[in-house]
Every structure is written in structure tokens, then in C-alpha cells.
């Protein structure tokens, strides 16, 4: 750590990877331990593969069925991205409308909040009935459940602007549009990204639930098939790929957040 390179403000790639490992070391260690215990237990107790396959069996399975898994993951990914994209494209403008329009605030917002109590998953069969087995019902379920956290967080963010900030803009002669672009929207960005981070996870859930009900493709569909065939290793493999997909998507949102609001990272790092 006392080498000249560590004084450098931009650490080398190797140093960063090492830093990541030391930081995440405890979590990684625990994870590794769990897998080792799992592996040992299945071997020692001779657990049948159709009940609980060992990690090594799952890894081999993933490797063997890679093409099949990717093919279905790709189908699920499309549903997730379209559903989530729709949530963003509809949700953020709706939040803006709620903040700026009395009617939306008084009618749309309470309506939305009360609809939030409807378990959206329960709507999935209806959507399938209406829109068939294609991609559309899954996209809609993903949209429906990822939509709310995005709207609510955006609304909260835009309302969190202090009165003085609005006064400041007004005193400079800013109109509504300028106040929105220069104050309200950037101020709301940390909250918006908070909503997006919740929303992306919800969108994955929505897509998979949609697939459970009726599908011809996707990781949720693959799970159903595997279940019928008692192919437990394939079931687990699907879960692993699905989790990986969730983690990667979440981290993409985090990465975009860092690009878009570098100032926010500075504030949160200070708190840490």
C-alpha cells in the first residue's frame, strides 16, 4: 500500500479488483462456506438429485444446457426490459403530471395508490386471457408491478424541493419549464434512481410470474417444464441464471446512476 502507484488518484484495474475483493471478502467468504457446506451435505447424506442437487451438479448442468438457458433467458430479458422501459416512459411523465397538475394530484394519484393494494400478480391470468400467450401479457405484468415504485419515488423527489430553491429560481426570472429542468428534475434524480432500482427487480418478478401462467419461452416457462419432468438441476439452473440476470440489471441501473448523478455519490460517500 505504500508503493508509488497507490498514491496515484486513479488506481490501476488490478488494484481496484483487489480492493473490491477485500471489501466484499466477508460476504464472498460466507457464500463460499454455504456452498461448501451444501456440497458436503448432499454428498455425505446422499441426498437424491431430484430433491436437492449439489452446487457442482448445478454448475455442470448450467454448462451442459447453456444454449437452452440462454435462449430462454433472452426471452425473459426482453419482457423485463420492455416492461421496465414502459414503466419509465409512462411513470416519470405521470409523476410530473401529478406534481404539476391539480387534477392528476387529486384524482390520478389517490386512484393509483388504492390500486396499489391490488396484487398485480393476480391480474396476470386476466391479461393472458386478453392478450394470449405472446410477449405482451408478460410485458404488461412487468410494467404493472415495476410502475408504482418509479412513480411514487419520482413524485416524492420532485416534491422534496425546498421552497427557497423555487424562490431562488423565480427571483432569477425562471418560468415553470426552467424551474422544472434546472431545479425540480435534477433534485428528484436520486429518488428517481431509487425507484428505478426497486422497479428493475419488480420487473423481473413480473415477467417470470407472467411466464408461470402462460408462456412458450422464458426462464419461468423453463422452470415449469423442468418441474413437470422432475429435472431439479434444471430448475436450480434457471434460478441461478434468473438471479444473475437480476443482479446484472440492477447493477446496470446503479452504473447509470453513477454516470448521471456523480454528485450524489459524493454526498452518500461522505455519510459513509
Amino acid at each position, binding site marked *: 500500500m505504500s508503493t508509488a502507484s497507490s498514491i496515484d488518484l486513479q488506481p490501476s484495474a488490478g488494484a481496484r479488483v483487489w480492493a473490491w475483493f477485500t471489501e466484499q471478502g466477508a460476504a464472498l467468504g460466507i457464500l463460499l462456506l454455504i456452498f461448501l457446506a451444501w456440497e458436503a451435505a448432499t454428498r455425505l447424506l446422499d441426498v437424491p438429485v431430484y430433491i436437492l442437487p449439489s452446487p457442482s451438479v448445478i454448475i455442470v448442468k448450467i454448462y451442459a444446457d447453456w444454449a437452452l438457458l440462454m435462449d430462454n433467458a433472452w426471452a425473459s430479458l426482453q419482457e423485463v426490459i420492455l416492461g421496465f422501459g414502459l414503466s419509465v416512459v409512462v411513470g416519470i411523465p405521470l409523476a410530473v403530471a401529478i406534481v404539476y397538475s391539480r387534477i392528476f394530484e387529486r384524482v390520478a394519484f389517490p386512484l393509483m395508490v388504492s390500486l396499489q393494494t391490488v396484487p398485480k400478480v393476480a391480474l396476470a391470468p386476466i391479461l393472458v386471457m386478453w392478450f394470449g400467450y405472446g410477449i405482451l401479457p408478460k410485458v404488461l405484468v412487468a410494467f404493472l408491478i415495476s410502475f408504482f415504485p418509479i412513480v411514487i419515488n419520482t413524485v416524492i423527489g420532485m416534491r422534496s424541493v*425546498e421552497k*427557497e*430553491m423555487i*424562490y*431562488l*429560481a*423565480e*427571483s*432569477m*426570472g*425562471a418560468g415553470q419549464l*426552467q424551474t422544472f429542468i*434546472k*431545479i425540480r428534475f*435534477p*433534485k428528484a*434524480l436520486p429518488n428517481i434512481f431509487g425507484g428505478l432500482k426497486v422497479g428493475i427487480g419488480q420487473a423481473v418478478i413480473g415477467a417470470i410470474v407472467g411466464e408461470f401462467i402462460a408462456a412458450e419461452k422464458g426462464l419461468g416457462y423453463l422452470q415449469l417444464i423442468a418441474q413437470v419432468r422432475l429435472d431439479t438441476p434444471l430448475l436450480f439452473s434457471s434460478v441461478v441464471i434468473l438471479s444473475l440476470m437480476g443482479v446484472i440489471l440492477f447493477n446496470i441501473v446503479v452504473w447509470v446512476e453513477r454516470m448521471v*448523478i456523480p*454528485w*450524489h455519490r*459524493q*454526498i452518500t460517500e*461522505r455519510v459513509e
Partner: protein
Amino acid sequence: MTAQREMITHSANDVSVEVAGVTKHYRTAKSGPVHALDEVSLNLGSGEFVSIVGPSGCGKSTLLMLISGLIPVSSGTIKVGGKPVNGPVDEAGIVFQRDVLLDWRSVLSNVMLPVEIKRLDQKAHLNKATELLHSVGLTGFEEKYPSELSGGMRQRVAICRALVQSPGLLLMDEPFGALDALTREQMNLDLQRMWLRDRNTVLFITHSIEEAIFLSDRVAVMSARPGRIAEVLDIDLGRPRGAQTRSDRKFVEYIDRVRRRFLAQGILSES
């Protein structure tokens, strides 16, 4: 005195402030109307530096907001540069009680905000902004975010932001309230220097009697709520004022006089 002031500012356009019989009630949802200001009258000549001192909650910020045109009067009239105020006053640069910096903008782009919003010449004002930051000791901090600054530094940025458009009228609401005594004294000197150079009209709100007297041509003393102007003092001290001013006998007498005024009002009490 008035004639002299007019001589000083003969070239600049008129940014006098006339507050005549202004009353302000705030309507509140729960507790009924708040009577914040009662029949306040106060005039600021163009290029004059006037301070307001008064107890907390007496309506100082309210008066400043009214003059800036950000909130409407309940009755009475306010004119800036001879024109009645009804809407944000264009010539005004405001330093709010809190610094209100935008977290997502660098120091320099915070200072440039008014230029951006008013669509003024970016290039010319960029120099001005850099100069201003330099004059308050913030050179090298241009690209930092507000979260990386101390409270005093943030307030200095807010002052630069108010000054970047060379406002004819500068409205400052306890700008140095959050600063330590030493920084505060330095800021007083810096503000005086800038004012002596630009000669804009300044309304300066403060809790500090000493600060008000040190900086101002005149000091208006307000009474507790509903706020009224209890007394206006002419401060007859030479310029530029410095460390020796603070030990000047006249300076000490002015402080004493304001303090006795607060004692008489029961705002300060010795028992």
C-alpha cells in the same frame, strides 16, 4: 446626506427602494393568519447600504421577500427604481438565509445559474464568476460540488451567485449567520470592498448589531412581531471601515444605542 448619495451613484440607473405602509399577513391552514409586518415604511436611496436588525421572528425575512417581489404584500406599496413591485424584481440579487446551493452543480455552475436562467452572455460572465470566486478565496474550488465545501465556503458561493449579474439591488438575509466570528469579520470586509466598488443598493439583514453598524449607512431597528420599524440610525463613520473602526468611540456608542433600544422593548432583559 441624500444629495451626497445621489452624487455617488449619478451614473448608475436608479435602484432606490420605497416601502410605504406595508402590512403582511400570512394565511396559515391551521392556526389562522399570522400578522408578520405592520405598516412598515422604509426607503433606501440608490447605492445605499441599509441593515435591518431585530429579534427572531419579527419579519425581517418577510420584508426582504416582499421587496424581492417573491411574495405579495397584504397592503401598502413597494417600489424598486420607482416602479411598483408585482412579481420577481429583475435587478435584485438575493442571498437567502440558507445558502440554497444546488447539490448537483459544481461551484462554478452554481454561480453561473442566474446567467443561464436569464440567458445572459456566458463568456463574459464566466470571467466575472471566476473573479468573484477568487475574491472570496475560492479559487481552485470551481469544479467541486457543494457537498465538498464547508458551511462558510457554501455561503460565499451563494454570495458570488447573487453578485454575478452585477445586481443593482442586493438583498441579503443573514448571509453570515452560520459563519464563525473570524470568517464573519473577513466576509464583512470583503462585502464592504465589493460594495465600495459597485455601489449597488444593499438591504442587509442580520442578528448582529455590531455587524449592522459596521457595514451600513443606516441601520433600521425592528420591534418584535408584528414587525415595525422602531428606529432608523444614521451611521456616520468614514469608509472604508476596518479593524480600527470597531474600537472607535462612535462605533461603540451606536452599538450601545441599539442595545438600549432592545432593552427598552423588552427584547433584551438584564434581570
